[in-house]
């Protein structure tokens, strides 16, 4: 990937992306209906922005994230990173892609291998991409731990996930995602399992990382308020369609699509 010009191409470009799942055939060969998780999605994410994808469960928001990190491949349509098609990557180019795009998962209790220490977890991306010596990796891991607010990094280095709280685990997951200095991170509901006081600190951390390192984020959430707080632009996704894309401010203030209006209306708040 050479000579990328952020003005010419968005960092991420999805064009006409459709993802269909084939449910298993019925017991007597009855044919199940194809389920369209995503239906003809167009989406551009620009370098350096935090882009919010808001939707309810089953809306296709998680599928979108999984397509963008190539955990799955689209049925139709094209996905580009920095103007280059990623649909059919394999071998070396795929490995290069994997060093540029990372993901933060929803459940911090499930996303860390219970048998690996914090150090082993965070250094894994460095190891598999053959970056640095054991000493320099150790330095990098400690430095990353401190970046995500686990200070002093040395104190957490040899811990295991079960010794950490949910909020601390999620910080470890963030550390694993940023340790390679990727260009694009998909954060799939990173705060939905955390208590409000811990969640808000994590949102703050993500926004600080963006400011400090210039990484681009896709923030997937069901919480419109969180998207508004963190994101520059927001897309609302409903039943596999993107119904509205706008700046966070505008979407809340002048929602156009009826679904967005409904979503705003039912946001819990203090009405009494």
């Amino acid at each position, binding site marked *: 990937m050479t000579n990328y010009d952020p003005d010419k191409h968005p960092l991420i470009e999805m064009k006409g992306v459709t993802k269909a799942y084939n449910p298993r055939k019925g017991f007597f060969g009855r044919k199940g209906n194809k389920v369209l998780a995503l239906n003809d999605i167009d989406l551009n994410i620009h370098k350096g922005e935090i882009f919010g994808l808001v939707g309810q469960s089953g809306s296709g928001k998680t599928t979108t994230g999984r397509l963008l990190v190539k955990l799955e491949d689209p049925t139709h349509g094209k996905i580009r990173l920095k103007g280059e098609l990623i649909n059919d990557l394999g071998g070396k180019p795929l490995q290069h892609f994997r060093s540029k*795009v990372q993901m933060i998962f929803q459940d911090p209790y499930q*996303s860390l291998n219970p048998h*690996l220490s914090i150090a082993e977890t965070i250094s*894994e991306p460095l190891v*598999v991409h053959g970056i640095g010596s054991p000493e320099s990796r150790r330095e990098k891991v400690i430095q990353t731990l401190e970046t995500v607010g686990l200070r002093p990094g040395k104190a957490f280095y040899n811990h295991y996930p079960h010794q950490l709280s949910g909020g601390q685990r999620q910080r470890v997951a963030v550390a694993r995602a940023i340790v390679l200095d990727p260009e694009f991170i998909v954060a799939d509901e990173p705060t939905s399992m955390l208590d409000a006081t811990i969640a808000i600190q994590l949102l703050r951390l993500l926004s600080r990382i963006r400011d400090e390192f210039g990484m681009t984020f896709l923030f997937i959430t069901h919480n419109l308020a969180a998207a508004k707080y963190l994101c520059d632009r927001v897309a609302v996704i409903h039943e596999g369609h993107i119904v509205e894309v706008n700046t966070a401010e505008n979407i809340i203030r002048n929602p156009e699509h009826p679904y967005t209006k409904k979503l705003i209306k039912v946001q819990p708040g203090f009405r009494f």
Partner: protein
Amino acid sequence: MLNNHYVQRFVKGWRIFIKNPVGKAGIGILTVFMIMALASFCLPLFGPMYDPMTGIDPNIKISTPPSLTHWLGTDNVGRDIFAQLLEGAKVAFIVGLSSAFFSIVLGTVIGMVSGYAGGWVDAILMRTADIIMVMPSLVILLILASLFGQFNIWLIVFIIAIMRWPAVSRVIRSQTLSLKTRPFIEASRVAGASSVRIIFRHIMPNVLPLAFLYMTFRVTAAILVEAALSFLGFGDPSQVSWGMMLQWVWKSGHMFQAPYWLIPPGISISLLTLAFYMLGRAMDEVLDPRLRKEGQS
């Protein structure tokens, strides 16, 4: 890999294990047999008369009941039964543990690969497993033995291992299938880890306890198969084993004349397999918290 974390896990598991009366009894019986197996290495110290295979008491030409010189008596050619029993313990451990070990290694690796790879790899491996699983292993062994004559002990170990991996691989495969979709495996894929790395670094530590559990049950099976084979006369003729001792009792027509010769190997086979079975049951409890009583966590 051997660090504090694994030691801690082991200690924690051990504490639960040893609280269980079944586990305690299993360990107790096993210890006795282990001492017997170790004692068999000391037999040469007592002179050639106590060699379990070739040591013949020059004064005895027939099977004799227990005496001071022969604690459990002698067989029909004057060999010491106690010495044979000790030697048999050693052989039982070798046969049981090594064939269980091979079948577990085979089953675990095949199970993990099959579960993780999916698709046609999975289909081929699992159909093979199905075919082997439905074959009656003892009958196959008997047919092979009748074709090729008596087996060497290591060949028996090997064949038992080959016959016994499929059940393990099925269990490991289903465990792998559920692990495969866990976010920490996906996180590792996103980070760029290769399939080999994911299988051995991320999946293996999570399935190993289960593999060990199955190993204890496989030991039981292997010991029984070897004993049956030997008793039926297809064992390794150059090795003393408990099954072989039973075969000798039967062949020499002492089945109902020499209980001191018949009972020790018979009871040993039952007790040792029982011990491994109890070990497995207690380990099951360590691995499955639902079987645990409150307050033991």
